[in-house]
């Protein structure tokens, strides 16, 4: 563990992202939490989380890396459980599983090479790192915790989760797979498209943002798989700023109007412009319009795949990038253009300390703006932005068209969808149905409590021992 690790080419963007995010999270926490006790708790937890983050960035071996990851996880778990204990539990358990997998992989690497140092992972143990960091970075099917945790956490905590915590998975992937690794590209493209697709449907603003995070993580994973960790790191920085802004401003909207449902928020931009403007500004940068850092970075990711990648991979990434504009439009446009006369009066409960919220959002916006309009900042992160637009213009065009079509079709379908969105992977997490229930039933047979059963089991056990030994 050494502090010099903090400033190497990969870690520096993460460090910068963490710095800005934690500051603005503390500031927005001052506004978000009403009770003084909660405020103090949040400050303490942010301190713990930042300590964990610095530990993660500065640690030189995998064990310490996991150690600090766990500290970060625990403090974030505690933050989430201030509002939603159930989602917090899901978050904690999934992250513990991830840490366990990484530990197993680390142990394997140690057995293989005799060293714990962070670095490329030898072949037989890659799957554990992929699975562990896959849970952290929300690979498809391993992403079950992400919409729950990001959607239901308090807004400052969501910002930290989406801005920093999931990026630790990317960081780990960059460290473990410095060389090009084709499966990661595959996973990344699927993930980018899947996240974007899922983000079209929900009516809950924060859920949309959560799936959007997943989509962007897919871009980063693809970049890692292509072997260009610097681009992934720079993307992580940019995305951290954007998502921090979006989640905090979504929190402002929620607090101001008492709901996160887009349908209920129709036209609210006219009522309370400041609250909605912050969200919209963030969405503008996030959508990846030409000239923003998102645009630049997405193109870098696509071009980093190179010519060896199958044709559909850049295609899907391009489509996912276009869909980002679509779903962000989905949640911001109704705020201004729809009439909310049917919905009654949205509540205004904010007092004087809205200033904190505005302050935190402003910090983030400034950073994003700086990031977006001065691409040279990316050079500081040693990213070669030798910007070449997507290799095939026609392909990009077709992809954009396909994305638009999907959005349009989804818009037509949207009215019939209930508030929670599509039936989701979260069904698996309920105790009353799904895998956990089966799990529970199986374990019920383990203690019959009868004596002759015991003797029988002991005999069978002895026979097995006799046969094997």
């Amino acid at each position: 563990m050494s502090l010099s690790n903090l400033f190497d080419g990969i870690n520096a963007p993460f460090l910068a992202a963490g710095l800005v995010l934690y500051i603005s999270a503390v500031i927005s926490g001052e506004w978000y939490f009403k009770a003084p006790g909660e405020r103090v708790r949040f400050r303490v937890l942010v301190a713990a989380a930042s300590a964990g983050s610095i530990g993660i960035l500065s640690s030189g071996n995998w064990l310490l890396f996991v150690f600090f990851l766990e500290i970060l996880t625990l403090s974030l778990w505690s933050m989430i459980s201030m509002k939603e204990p159930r989602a917090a539990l899901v978050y904690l358990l999934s992250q513990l599983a991830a840490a366990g997998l990484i530990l197993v992989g680390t142990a394997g690497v140690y057995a293989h090479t005799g060293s714990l140092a962070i670095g490329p992972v030898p072949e037989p143990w890659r799957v554990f790192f992929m699975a562990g960091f896959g849970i952290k970075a929300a690979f498809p099917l391993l992403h079950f915790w992400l919409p729950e945790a990001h959607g239901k956490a308090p807004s400052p905590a969501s910002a930290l989760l989406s801005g920093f915590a999931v990026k630790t998975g990317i960081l780990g992937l960059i460290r473990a797979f410095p060389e090009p690794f084709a499966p990661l590209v595959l996973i990344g493209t699927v993930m980018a498209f899947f996240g974007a697709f899922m983000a079209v449907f929900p009516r809950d603003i924060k859920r949309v943002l959560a799936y959007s995070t997943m989509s962007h993580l897919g871009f980063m994973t693809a970049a890692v798989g292509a072997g260009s960790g610097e681009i992934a790191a720079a993307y992580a920085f940019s995305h951290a700023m954007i998502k921090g802004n979006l989640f905090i401003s979504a929190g402002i909207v929620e607090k101001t109007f008492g709901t996160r449902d887009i349908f209920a928020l129709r036209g609210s931009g006219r009522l309370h412009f400041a609250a909605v403007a912050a969200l919209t500004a963030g969405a503008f940068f996030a959508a990846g319009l030409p000239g923003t850092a998102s645009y630049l970075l997405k193109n870098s990711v696509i071009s980093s795949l190179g010519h060896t990648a199958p044709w559909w991979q850049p295609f899907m990434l391009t489509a996912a990038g276009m869909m980002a504009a679509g779903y962000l439009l989905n949640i911001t446009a109704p705020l201004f253009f729809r009439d909310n006369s049917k919905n009654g009066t949205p509540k205004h409960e904010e007092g004087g300390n809205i200033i904190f919220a505005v302050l935190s959002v402003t910090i983030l916006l400034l950073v994003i703006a700086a990031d977006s309009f001065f691409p040279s900042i990316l050079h500081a992160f040693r990213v070669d932005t030798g910007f070449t637009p997507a290799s095939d213009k026609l392909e990009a065009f077709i992809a954009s068209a396909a994305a638009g079509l999907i959005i349009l079709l989804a818009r037509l379908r949207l009215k019939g969808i209930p508030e929670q969105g599509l039936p989701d992977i979260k069904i698996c997490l309920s105790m009353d149905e799904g895998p956990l229930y089966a799990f529970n039933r199986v374990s019920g047979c383990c203690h019959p409590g009868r004596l002759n059963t015991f003797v029988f089991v002991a005999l069978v056990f002895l026979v097995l021992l006799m046969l094997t030994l």
Partner: protein
Amino acid sequence: MTLVLAIVVPLVAAFLIPVFHLARKTLPVSLIGIMGLISLSASMAAAYAGWFSPEVSLLGGWAPEIGIVLVADRLSSAFLLITGIGSGAALACALEKFGGGPWRFYAIFFLLLGSMNGILLTGDLFNLFVFYEIFSVAAYLLVAFSMSWQALEAGLKYLVLGTIGALFILLGTAFTFMATGILNMALLSEALVSVPRETLTAISACLVLGLTIKTGAFPVHFWLPDAHSSAQTAVSALLSGVLVKVSIYALMRVCFLFFLETNGTVFLAITVIGSLSALGGHLMALRQDDIKRLLAYSTVAQIGYILIGVGCASAAGAAAAVFHSFNHMLMKMGLFIAAGNVSDEKGTREICKLTGLWKEKPFWVLGFTVLSAAIVGIPPLNGFMSKWFIILSSAGAGTVIPALVIAAGTVISAAYYLRVLSAFVSPGESDQEDPFKSSPRKVRSKIVSLTIVGSFAMFCLALGIMAFSPFSREYFSSIGRTAVDVGAYVGLVTGR
């Protein structure tokens, strides 16, 4: 010299208690406390001797071939330390709860202490069985001590199942004696090499099954949850923290001495048992509504972890197993004491009714939180470190599935411990009900128990941080090296 005293002093204390009882109906607490201190210092002296200069004492002056020997090396003294700390804590809790009244309880307690030291020190297979008998009988009685029908039933169950285990240990011993004509374990480790394959199969199957039943590992764990959950608080803590560890020591000692060179499959079997145990214990704990049963099933799972460490058949695995045994002693004893006191006060053991405790008794809840975080394996605490060492040694032995089982176990255990903790911190009934409700039962404040829980929690933190330093790691790995170094043990006993 000191080795014998570690066994005889507790036994003499147990024999003296009825004599004192004749003079006085209720024994003074200080008397029992002093006896306990003397006994524990005797076992600590043996541990000290065994750690710094491995020692053999020949009983009756006979050579190891014809007599009985007591041996203390680093493995024994590590477990002596575990039993010493654990029994001391349990005795303090029992004294605080019962006072000097139930003198037979203390007599049985000291008998148990003596027999545990006997198991840990003996170098003779039959002597091991004899001490196992005392140990088991005393344990059955301690379980049944509270005389409620649950306790009696659990004691009876424990008796029957424990006797089956003892039967198989005896059968294995008899087979060993028939095949070789020797009972000394060090000499047996040399003699078993020339024993035919089929006989060795019978010996190893019988011994492994018997000792596995005694440890309470998964397929034959049925006695454990009942016994641990229906006993008194101090006894549950003792059972889970100490008694199980003694059986694990016996398993380690016997397997490493006998089968390391002759029958390596035994260790594979132990690994499988351990993995099953870890999964099964955690899954069952997830279902429990009774807090002490939950802790008992968690013990089954933790035994599984330790057995995975043993099953690596390497120095690193043995060291990790010992380290986890020590940690589990600290964590589970603290958890049992805390849970027992809390549920005594609430008058129920159902988790969903143990609410509002954070307001009423924050220190207990704090202690419980730290200890359960340790047992789940939250990083700065010792549970994480020992699990990490077990995973490391398991991966080093080339088996990944046990390591994955441990990782999965972490998640499941986090789920059920969080359920308990969330019940503790949720607002209690008294907050909603009317303030004129009859005041809760008056219970004496349990300063000693609270101190024990607190100090164990501190110890957990300290050990977790200490495990990072190479110095303490060196200490632990020396235990592992001693455990697997059969040649050194044989040389120590035979004097060659």
